[in-house]
């Protein structure tokens, strides 16, 4: 640029205005804007624009006068490299001024000396603005380190204050995404051999992935390519482990680091920050996880207590006494409440004795409720008529309607006519009962006469009958007896049960049951049993000699 004409300096009020702006906090831009306007007028330029420059790229910051002239160019928003044609250009420290020349070509920046006072002031103001920007950026970075430290501190506090895992997971995820300037994020927690999605932010993530996913370890170490398929659509992933007691509890993922110009990869500082954050989060998450487990255990225990109470209420408190007959029922619930059921009851005016023994699949509350349904249905149906295939068919329909698809009941239901000694029964898929004749001979089996209840809505069941003579013994049992397991997994089995029955066939039924009880305990040798054990015994009194 060449100095061609003298420059008119601003009048005193203008100097005063500039001095006032320079002294005002955050007045740098306004100061530069006024200065640019004075500079433009002094040169008679139609318009002038100031650009702040960094790394060779200049961005338009201020415009004085017209943005463009009729038929002429318009100030571009950004300038990279050489100034565009059609403008007079004035290079400043970390700045650029473009001026619109008039049609005669006068009034441009290049028409005046670079050393005159207004231009020098512009240069100084440009430098000041750049320094102020840099200072602000550094101030921002320092402050943001403060935000990071606060976030770490807050997550540390959460260790003591938050035990709700869902709430904590959301907090951890939101803070991680925010801290890392990420666009998206996901939190995975370890469950067995896989990681399951616990929370996501900013878009979908895969529900689970195997713990030995290829490339996972190298990605967690900050090497190799990360599995971007975890967050479909993401381009740059940063994964850090969540570990406590040297065990991997989960993985924290953030994706696509934001800047003013778009998204990009994360750097080593980001990995360090997220790693520190994950260490803090790990303690909080582990505490919350243990708390959730404790709550779940407590809930299950309460449910078990309730289920056991339901079962206790259903089993008979006392057994009917019938001259010439001995009746006995016994049940030992397993550690987890099971679904065994038995009943011995006098059937109204008919003078008959009703009996039943059953086993519902499953454990806990669902099994207890199905037993309750079975008991009430059977009681109602028995009041309406004697044992028949129709009665069991109706019972089956009721069970089908009341139970879940994977639940069914095996059941022996029957009636005893004490006067005639005639015992009728239907065995719906239950273990065979045993009949031991006082007269000796092979043990007779009361085999299944139809399907278990609840398997299919339709079915057919047969009624069978046996006549019991004096001293004859009928034993009905659930599989908790015959499948009672020893530590080496060997079951007690039918033969051992039959041997016990034969050995104690003449003993009082309470002693017979005590013998079976002892035998199962000895066989189990302290091994906890997973199934209830139930017995129903019916014996016709022996003839007096």
């Amino acid at each position: 640029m060449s100095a061609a004409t003298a420059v008119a300096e601003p009048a005193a009020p203008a100097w005063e205005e500039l001095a006032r702006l320079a002294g005002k906090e955050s007045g740098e831009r306004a100061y530069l804007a006024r200065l640019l306007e004075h500079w433009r007028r002094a040169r008679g330029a139609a318009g002038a624009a100031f650009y702040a420059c960094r790394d060779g790229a200049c961005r338009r910051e201020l415009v004085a006068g017209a943005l463009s002239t009729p038929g002429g160019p318009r100030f571009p928003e950004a300038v990279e490299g050489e100034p565009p044609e059609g403008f007079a250009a004035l290079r400043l420290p970390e700045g650029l001024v473009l001026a619109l020349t008039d049609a005669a070509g006068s009034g441009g920046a290049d028409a005046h000396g670079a050393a005159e006072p207004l231009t020098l002031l512009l240069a100084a103001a440009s430098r000041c603005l750049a320094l102020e920007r840099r200072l602000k950026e550094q101030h921002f970075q320092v402050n943001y380190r403060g935000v990071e430290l606060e976030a770490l501190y807050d997550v540390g506090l959460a260790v003591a204050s938050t035990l709700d895992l869902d709430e904590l997971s959301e907090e951890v995820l939101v803070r991680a995404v925010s801290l890392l300037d990420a666009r998206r994020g996901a939190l995975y927690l370890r469950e067995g051999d896989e990681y399951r999605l616990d929370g996501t932010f900013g878009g979908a993530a895969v529900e689970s992935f195997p713990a030995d996913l290829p490339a996972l370890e190298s990605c967690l170490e900050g090497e190799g390519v990360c599995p971007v398929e975890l967050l479909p659509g993401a381009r740059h992933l940063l994964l850090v482990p969540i570990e406590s007691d040297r065990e991997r509890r989960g993985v924290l993922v953030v994706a696509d680091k934001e800047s003013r110009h778009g998204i990009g990869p994360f750097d080593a500082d980001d990995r360090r920050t997220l790693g520190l954050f994950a260490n803090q989060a790990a303690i909080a998450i582990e505490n919350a996880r243990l708390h959730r487990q404790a709550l779940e255990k407590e809930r299950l225990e309460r449910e078990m207590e309730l289920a056991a109470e339901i079962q206790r209420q259903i089993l008979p408190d006392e057994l009917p006494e019938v001259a010439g007959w001995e009746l006995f029922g016994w049940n030992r619930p397993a550690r987890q409440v099971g679904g065994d059921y038995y009943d011995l009851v006098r059937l109204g005016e008919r003078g008959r004795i009703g009996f039943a023994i059953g086993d519902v699949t499953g454990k806990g509350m669902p099994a207890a409720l199905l037993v309750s349904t079975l008991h009430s249905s059977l009681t109602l149906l028995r009041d309406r008529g004697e044992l028949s295939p129709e009665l069991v068919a109706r019972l089956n329909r009721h069970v089908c309607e009341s139970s879940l698809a994977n639940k069914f009941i095996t059941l022996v239901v029957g009636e005893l006519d004490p006067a005639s000694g005639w015992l009728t029964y239907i065995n719906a898929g239950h273990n065979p009962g045993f009949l031991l004749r006082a007269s000796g001979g092979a043990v007779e089996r009361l085999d299944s006469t139809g399907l278990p209840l609840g398997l299919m809505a339709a079915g057919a069941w047969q009624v069978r009958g046996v006549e019991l003579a004096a001293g004859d013994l009928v034993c009905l049992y659930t599989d908790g007896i015959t499948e009672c397991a020893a530590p080496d997994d060997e079951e007690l089995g039918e033969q051992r049960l039959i041997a016990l029955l034969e050995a104690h066939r003449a003993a009082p039924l309470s002693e017979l049951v005590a013998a079976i009880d002892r035998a199962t305990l000895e066989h189990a040798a302290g091994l906890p049993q997973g199934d209830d054990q139930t017995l129903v015994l019916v014996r016709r009194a022996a003839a007096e000699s």
Partner: protein
Amino acid sequence: MTESLKLTVDHADGIAVLYTEGYINNEGGEQIARAAYRLIDGDQRTLLLNLQGTKIVNSIGISILIEIIEKMIEIEGRLAFCCLTPTIEKTFHIMGLAQYAGIYPDQETALRELNAGRSA
């Protein structure tokens, strides 16, 4: 959790209120800035940002909010925030936003204070 920003603008007692819902990041911040500059161009000099629906803000979003504050100072206008989560409020204090923009617990208080400032 709402993630991309939803922005609505309303006017109350002559003050423009910008309601945000979602992430104030680069995209969300730019959206707020565009709306704020449009209001400023329309001679609006007092803005209130109601962040009730925002749980998360990142450093890019904060830098854009700072630019809006600087613009408001330049035109001698006023900008205030209300209904911030404790985490965002703490962040705004650390980052210095609270030095130049009022922070109020609820919209009613914010409008009252901003109106008192206008009439003073």
